[in-house]
């Protein structure tokens, strides 16, 4: 929380004049599960980027193409939608969940990362 301001310091009418300042607000603390990126399996299809409700997928443009570069854990709430829509989460032959080592995104309990 920023320091609480007095009434003389605030814009009138409850207006918020700093666009998009919610970006200062950390929602990553909500996470129960953490998506872990396994770049070796990623095909950079951008489905995770498209569907992330919290715009927490880091993308870099390399040679004019977008490349997945992992997560912004400041915002990621751990919903797992990225892993759900990731084509690498499904085995193309069996249509069953792919083994973890073949996936691009694996959901792990946040408690595994408690020390970080």
């Amino acid at each position, binding site marked *: 929380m*920023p320091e609480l*301001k007095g009434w003389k310091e605030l814009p009138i009418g*409850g207006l*918020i004049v*700093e*666009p*998009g*300042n*919610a*970006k*200062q*607000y*950390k*929602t990553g603390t*909500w*996470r129960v599960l953490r998506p872990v990126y396994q770049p070796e399996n990623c095909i950079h*299809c*951008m*489905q995770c*980027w*498209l*569907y992330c*409700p*919290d*715009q*927490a997928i880091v*993308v*870099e*443009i390399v040679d*004019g*193409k*977008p490349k997945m570069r992992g997560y*912004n854990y*400041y*915002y990621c*709430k*751990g*919903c*797992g*939608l990225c*892993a*759900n*829509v990731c084509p690498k989460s499904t085995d193309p032959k069996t249509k069953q969940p792919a083994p973890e080592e073949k996936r691009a995104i694996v959901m792990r309990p946040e408690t595994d990362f408690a020390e970080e």
Partner: protein
Amino acid sequence: MPLNAIELAKLFHDKNPGITPGHRMCPGCAAPNVVKFALMTAIAKGYHPVVGLATGCLEVSTTIFPYTAWNVPYIHNAFENVAATISGVETAFRAAKKRGEIPPDKKLAFFAFAGDGGTYDIGLQSLSGAVERGHKFIYIVYDNEGYMNTGNQRSGATPPGSDTTTAPVGKQIPGKLQLKKNIVEIMAAHENVYVATVAISEPIDFMKKIEKALEFDGPAFIAAHSACVRFWRVNDDKAVESARLAVETLYWPLYEVERGVYRVTKKITNPKPVEEYIRSQGRFRPLLSRPDAKEIIEELQQYVTSRYERLLALEEITKDKPLRGPWAKEDFQTDEHAM
């Protein structure tokens, strides 16, 4: 043509499309994606979005003072009046343009977002009035089929058998008894309007419709399937899956109505049984343990099937037969008259 995920990522990987992270919607909520898909399309097409919100989850979670998750002009007025409010903003824009206060080539796109409560129920009059008057705006209902912001109460959009706190599945009454109000047809009946249903599982279809709405010479109404993972009692990662299943079972048929001309935009040849959709969500679990569950599901199945058949028939008979032409615009655009 709308852009695919790769192209969109190129455009938006380093900027926020109207809505920013740091909002406090539940993890996995579908609504932020509904907003993103709509606003990315508008921005990619060179429009400056101006956003109005009805009171609801999206509104409270994105603007908790002193934070706003909107980096475009935004107004929330009240619950039942987002359409009237945005009609005032849009009218002010036309007035300013007419008076030369805004460059004539500046393109603003006026969006109103509301939940199903703010649309089907308390906001219906305001919405109907604004659409009848022909304001150029895009109204998007993120339909999560209940008053989820206040904790899962029944709305006119709640499906039968769904367990809500104001129409709970009890010992005698099997939850909500009525089918969903057909808001799409109500809005299509305004005739001089572009109306469409969308689902986030079909992003290309979704954004194509937003594009049409942006270019349409009048108001547009978009109904978006929008899973509430919390009160539909599904896992946090299920919003897209449940949208897909809704489309595949015909629970949520994807179609559009442009001035009375119907077009089913995604034909489903072998629909899955609607029961599959019902069984995938915890909100129907109390129903499923009742002896009359079968009847209720069967009624829904019949409704869903016949509605789809009717849509296909309407597509056939309304082809090339718009109810009104673009001439309706002349009634409204007073700024084109010589002053």
